C-alpha cells in the first residue's frame, strides 16, 4: 500500500495541472483567437455598448414588443446570473394557475385574437433564458404588435419571417424566432 501512495499523490497533482489548468487554458487560447465573439457570450453591441446576447432572452411585456417564453428565474425573469426552470410538475395546481395567469395577460393585451394559443408562449422554458419562441407564437402576436406600433400587419409578418430560423442543415432542432433580435429590428424600423 505504501508503494502506491507516491504515485497516487504525484499523479493527482500532475493530472490536475494537465486537465485542470493546461487544458482549459489551451481551449481558451484557441477559442479566443478563432471564435472571439462566441467565446465571450455572443454579445449584441449598439454604439459599442452591449444591449444583450443573441443567445440569451430578455423580458418583454409591453404590447409593442414581441413577448418571449415565460421565465422562472428569480428574483426577476430572465436573470442571466441565476438560470432556473420552474420545476413545476404536470399535475401541480400551481402550474395550472401560472399558465392561466399567462393566458389572461395575453388575452388582456389582445382581446378576441382568433388564433389558437401556442403552448410555448404560456409555459416556462427550461433555462428561464430561452431566447426563442416558436413561429406559431410569433404569428399569434403579430396583430398586437402591429396595432401598438401603428404598422401594417403584413410588414410585421414579413419582419417575423426574416427572423425565423429553420432547422440546422434542414434536419436538426426546431424552427424558431429570436425575440430580442426581432424586437431590435422593430425598433430600428420606427
Amino acid at each position, binding site marked *: 500500500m505504501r508503494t502506491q501512495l507516491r504515485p497516487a499523490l504525484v499523479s493527482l497533482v500532475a493530472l490536475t495541472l494537465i*486537465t485542470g489548468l493546461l487544458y482549459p487554458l489551451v481551449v481558451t487560447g484557441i477559442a479566443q483567437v478563432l471564435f472571439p465573439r462566441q467565446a465571450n457570450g455572443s454579445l449584441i453591441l449598439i454604439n459599442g455598448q452591449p444591449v444583450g446576447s443573441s443567445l440569451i432572452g430578455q423580458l418583454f411585456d409591453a404590447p409593442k414588443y414581441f413577448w418571449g417564453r415565460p421565465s422562472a428565474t428569480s428574483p426577476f425573469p430572465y436573470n442571466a446570473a441565476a438560470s432556473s426552470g420552474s420545476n413545476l410538475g404536470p399535475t401541480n395546481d400551481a402550474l395550472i394557475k401560472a399558465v392561466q395567469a399567462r393566458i389572461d395577460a395575453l388575452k388582456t393585451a389582445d382581446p378576441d385574437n382568433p388564433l389558437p394559443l401556442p403552448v410555448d408562449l404560456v409555459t416556462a422554458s427550461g433555462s428561464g433564458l430561452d431566447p426563442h419562441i416558436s413561429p406559431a407564437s410569433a404569428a399569434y402576436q403579430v396583430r398586437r404588435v402591429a396595432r401598438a406600433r401603428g404598422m401594417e400587419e403584413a410588414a410585421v409578418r414579413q419582419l417575423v419571417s426574416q427572423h425565423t430560423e429553420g432547422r440546422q442543415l434542414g434536419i436538426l432542432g426546431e424552427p424558431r424566432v429570436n425575440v430580442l433580435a426581432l424586437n431590435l429590428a422593430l425598433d430600428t424600423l420606427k
Partner: protein
Amino acid sequence: MTINGLVQIGLYFVVLVALVKPLGWYMARVYEGQPCGLDRVVGPLERLIYRLCGVRQTEEMNWKTYAVAMLLFNGAGLFALYALQRWQGFFPLNPQGFGAVAPDLAFNTAASFVTNTNWQAYGGEMTLSYLTQMLGLTVQNFVSAATGMAILVALIRGLARRSALTIGNFWTDLVRSILYILMPLALLLSLLLVSQGVVQTFASYQTATLLQPASYAKPVMDANGQPVLDEQGQPKTEPAMAAEQVLAVGPAASQIAIKQLGTNGGGFFNVNSAHPFENPTPWSNFLQVLAILLVPAALCYTLGMMVGDTRQGWALLAAMTILLLCFIPLGLWAEQSGNPAFTALGIDQASSAGQSGGNMEGKEIRFGITNSVLWSATTTAASNGSVNSMHDSYTPLGGLVPLFLMQFGEVVFGGVGSGLYGMVVFAIIAVFVAGLMVGRTPEYLGKKIEPYEMKMASLLILIMPIVVLGFTAVASVTGVGTSSIFNPGSHGFSEMLYAYTSMGNNNGSAFGGLSVNTPFYNLTGGIAMLIARFWWAIPTLALAGALARKKLVPAGPGTLPTYTPLFIVLLIGVVVLVGALTFVPALALGPIIEHILMVSR
C-alpha cells in the same frame, strides 16, 4: 412522433454506430500499448508522469494492488476536492468573490464528482469560483471517467488472459485513458462547441443594458439577508426595476466537452445543457448528445477486440441499443401528447409546421420535444445525468422513462467503463441462468463461471436496490426527507425516488424541484454515491483477478455462444427482469399513479 423526429433520431443512431468501430479499435490499441498515432505528441508527457510517480510502465499488478491503487487515487481526489471548495475564498480566479462552500454540500459535491455522478446540489454560477470549477470539477471529470475505463480494461484482461496472476497496471491505464483518449476528444469537442456559441473566457460576468427595463416584485430582506414575512406569512415584496442584465459567463466549453465525453454530466451553469451558453444550437445539442453515448458504445468494440472476438462486443452493444430504443418512443409519445390540463385551458399543443407542440414546460424551443426526449433517455441510459430540459416538469410517463432507465443499474451504456463492466456482470448472470436451464456448467468467453464468480456478481446487483429503495424509504417517512418536496402528491414521491435512484446509480440528473441542498440529502446522497461506485468497482476487480487465473475451456457442443440473437434476447431479459422485479412497485407509487390521476381529472 413526427417524420422529422424520426429522421433526427435515426440520424443520431446511424452516426453513433458508425463511430463505434474506429474509436473502439483506437482505444484497444491504446490499452494494449500499441502505436496509435498520438505517441509522438503525448508520449514524452506520459513518460514524464511515470518518472515523477516512480512507476514502471511494464510493471503488472494483481487485482488487490490494482484496487488499492485505485482507492488511494480516488481517496486523495475526494480529499483535495473537499479542501478546494472549503478554501476557495483564499484562492485566485474567483472574480465573483464566492466564499467557502458549506461542509455538507462540499462533501456531497466531492463524493459526487469523484464517483463520476456529478449530482449537483448547488447552482454553478452562484456558488463556485472559476478555480474550483477547473482544478476541482474539470479534473475529476477526467480522472473519474478514466478510473471507470481502467477498471473495465482490467476486467477485460481478466477475461482475455489465462492462468495469469495480474490484470495490468492501474497507473498506465489511468494516464493513457486521459492523455490518449479523453483529452484529444475533449479538445476537439470543446472547440466545436465554442464555434456554436458556448462561452470560454476568464473574464468576469458581462453586463448588458436591457431594451425594455423589467419591473418585478422584489422580496424584502432583513439585515441578516432573510426574507421578511407579512401578516399572512407570505414573503413581503416591493416593486423594483431591472434595467440591466448580468450575463454569467466563464470557461464553460472545456468543462462541458469532458462532462459529456466522460459520462459525468455536471453542468457549468445551474440548468446544465438547457442554458443557451452551455448548449446554444441544435448542432451543439447533436454533438453533445452524441458525446454522451460515444465512448460507452465504442468500448464494447474495444472489449471485442481485446478478447479476440469482436462479435462479443457487438452483441453487448446490440443489447444496450435495443433496450434504449424500446424506451425512446414511450417518452416521445408521452411528451408529445402534452398535458391534458393545458388542453382544458384551450392551449394548442398539437405539433405543426409552426411549433413542436407537446409539453413545453421546462423545455427549450430550439430543442423541442424530439431532442429533449432523446437527451433525457440517453443521459439516463448512460450514467451521464446532464439535462437539456427539466425532468421534473415532464409528464408522468415521460419522467418514468429516465427513472426506469437508471434503475436498470446503469448498464444500458452506463458510465464510461462502469456501464460495460456492469453489463459483463449481467452477461455472467445470463449465462448462469441459461446454464441452470440446460443443466450445464456456465461459461463466458471460455471461462468457467463458478460459485466465486456468481457470489461476486450477486453481491453487485443486490446492493444498488438496497441503497436506492432504503434511502427513499427513509426519506419518505421522515420530516427531513419530505420537507424538501416541491411538487405535491405522488409527484413528490417521484422526486425522492428519482434523487436516490440517480445518486445510487452514479447518474446525477434530478427532478430539480426537490430541495436537495440540506444536510440530510447531502449526507445520505454522498454515502449512496460512494457505495454505488466503489461497491461495484472492488468486486469487479476481484472478478477480474479470479477470471484471469482460470484456464481456457474449449467451446464444446453444450457451450452457449454469447454473440447470437438468442443470447442478446436472454441478456435483455435478465436486465429487464432484475430491474422490473425490483422497481415496479416503487414506480407504481410514483409516476404510474400520477399518470392515472392526470388522465382521469
